[in-house]
């Protein structure tokens, strides 16, 4: 499939899926279950609103979701209490598959959701969205319901700037445009069709999720895209414009850490996929500067992109979902 063709056929706007009654009827006809996973770490200010909106609109009024679960990385605020008070299922990541060595990161929560949640489709939505709306879920789930070929749906958010001409720049955030898009352009040009490859909102079929690895840190989205592309091709992806997403901005310094983690994942994946023959051992300490009057100091941040294997390789998972070991390829 050519990239232009893919963009034309697999890029949607959420308004196309406004008819929730029809969407729920189709979901019920196919007899599929849909789970929403919200990974959290100290999100008490926004989590209540997300749970209330999704429960009201997508469970009670239109039963699109079968479960809403919070998977938490060890919040020290009232995230779990608030989410639970508004009726979400609440899990601590460390309590899921507790015999495994504990790892901490968003990717860990996403990976453990595959074991804990029961949906045939799992939709991941970040907890820090200030302008939360049901479209953040139905816009991502609908392409999977309406098209059996689609396996992985990514969100993107247009930026409503005023432009006097018909053409305006459109794309992702700073890390996407400065790091990921140039890398994809160099080595995986098909993936440049994804407008915001790093967006934290996506819906994926279980059959895909259980067969891909999960870096536990910043690289999880990049890793997914490379693996899904490698195994199922560009046609497996779709993307939906969810309009605006209002969230807290990250500092350039934090984005540096993110870029460092993504680079590690990208290099390792590229090596695994045979793009590079052998990547030399790289350092896992990011060094950034801070200045005090005329003195400059380096601050060191150890960032190691640890990784979880495909969930299907975990015996407890196969047992829970009655999957024979021969299925592990």
């Amino acid at each position, binding site marked *: 499939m050519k990239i232009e063709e893919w963009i034309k056929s697999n890029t949607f706007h959420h308004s196309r899926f406004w008819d929730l009654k029809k969407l729920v009827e189709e979901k019920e006809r196919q007899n599929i279950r849909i789970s929403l996973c919200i990974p959290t770490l100290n999100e008490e200010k926004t989590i*209540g609103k997300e749970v209330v*909106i999704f*429960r*009201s*609109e997508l469970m009670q009024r239109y039963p699109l979701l079968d479960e809403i679960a919070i998977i938490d990385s060890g919040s020290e605020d009232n995230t779990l209490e*608030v989410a639970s008070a*508004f*009726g979400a299922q609440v899990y601590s990541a460390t309590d899921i598959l507790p015999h495994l060595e504990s790892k901490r990161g968003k990717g860990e929560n996403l990976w453990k959701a595959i074991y804990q949640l029961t949906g045939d489709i799992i939709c991941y939505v970040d907890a820090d969205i200030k*302008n939360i709306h049901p479209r953040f879920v139905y816009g991502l789930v609908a392409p999977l319901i309406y098209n059996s070929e689609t396996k992985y749906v990514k969100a993107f958010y247009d930026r409503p700037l005023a432009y006097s001409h018909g053409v305006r720049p459109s794309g992702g955030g700073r890390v996407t445009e400065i790091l990921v898009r140039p890398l994809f352009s160099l080595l995986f040009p098909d993936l440049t069709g994804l407008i915001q490859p790093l967006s934290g909102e996506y819906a994926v079929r279980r059959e895909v999720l259980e067969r891909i690895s999960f870096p536990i840190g910043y690289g999880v989205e990049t890793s997914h895209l490379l693996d899904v592309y490698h195994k199922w091709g560009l046609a497996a992806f779709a993307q939906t414009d969810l309009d605006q997403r209002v969230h807290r901005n990250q500092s350039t310094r934090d984005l540096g850490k993110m870029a460092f983690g993504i680079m590690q994942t990208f290099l390792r994946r590229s090596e695994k996929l045979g793009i590079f023959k052998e990547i030399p051992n790289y350092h896992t300490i990011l060094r950034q500067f801070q200045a005090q009057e005329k003195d400059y100091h380096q601050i060191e941040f150890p960032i190691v992109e640890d990784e979880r294997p495909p969930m299907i390789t975990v015996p407890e998972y196969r047992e829970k979902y009655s999957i024979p070991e021969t299925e592990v390829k």
Partner: protein
Amino acid sequence: MAETHKQSSKFRDDILRHAPSFEKVVKEQRDLLLANLVMIGEIPAPTFQEADRLEFVKNRFTEANLQNCSTDEVGNTVGLLPGTKGERTLLMVAHADTVFSEKVDHTISVGPNKITGPGVADNSLGLAVLSTIPAFLENMDIELDSNLLLMGTTRSLGQGNLEGLRFFLSNSTIPIHTGVSIEGAQLGRLSYSSVGMLRGVITCIVPEEEDFLRMTDTNAIITINEVINKIIDIRLPKRPRTYIIMGAINAGHSYNTAATKATLQFEIRSERAEIVRQIRDQLEEIVAEVSSQSGMFVKLDIVATRRPGGIRFKHPLSRVTREIMKTMDIEPEIRPSISELSAFISNDIPAITVGISKAEHIHEPNESVLIDPMYKGIAQLISILMAIDKGYCDEN
């Protein structure tokens, strides 16, 4: 006497006995209510710009299978829940506009006990309750005999001057039997009468030919101060109760430049319309006098008026509402209103205004409403609606 006792006993059986149990059902519908509150509250709706917010409400009415879901010429949005008998029509309203500009961040946050954000109490909560009423009634298995017309009104606040509801009541062909106005705050609020009110702006402007001088004696602040001093000298009667509220003053731009324009926003309130008219005449005299003495351009603009009136304390609508509140341990806070109630009163329609929850920081960006009291506030509203429907609030 025996008839009255029988009626009272029936009222207890029909309404009061059920009132507390309604609270439980409302609580079960919490998510629907709070989601409506958040989604309505995040759509900015300054006065005259309520269209987007009311479009949301209209969709809710349509989804609830209400009839005649529509928007009128001034933007009011209505939905009709037909009664089993349909012999009369009750009108339940909530104003859609808020005091916040569309430029204000309208993000709402949901905490374990309260909802916070601009306009959540006045009046996003009122509108959210109005939007959720069909679901509450359905889940309580309540079918009203009367038609229930639900309406989100426009142009209520400030210079809107209740234009939305006034337009509807002036132009609708449906006779309205009773009106209920919902306000987000405060739980316990009960208004059944309206005070006379006149709201206006006095503006002082330095004429252009004197502007260049910027002398201290040609200063709009000094002139508006003169106006204020003369307003303070107006003798107000203790009975009927009468007030002049000076609400806002604006003048000047910097430390060292004499102000060329000053405005004073004020409101006159009185229990008698005649007194309001007399004070208005005095203000016009003050404006003319100060204008001629100072040589400045001074003018008075009236932006809103209300006629005093309403039902009596002993009117069954007022009495029954108090009785419901008492049964539900709600402390009534009875006060006259200048809100939608005034429009009902002007059209001789018996009406009340009730509040839903406890609120803090009203009209500030961190305005908030408590979640728990909402259940009681809504149960009270449904009980009042049932009492009106069953005829317990009829005068004869």
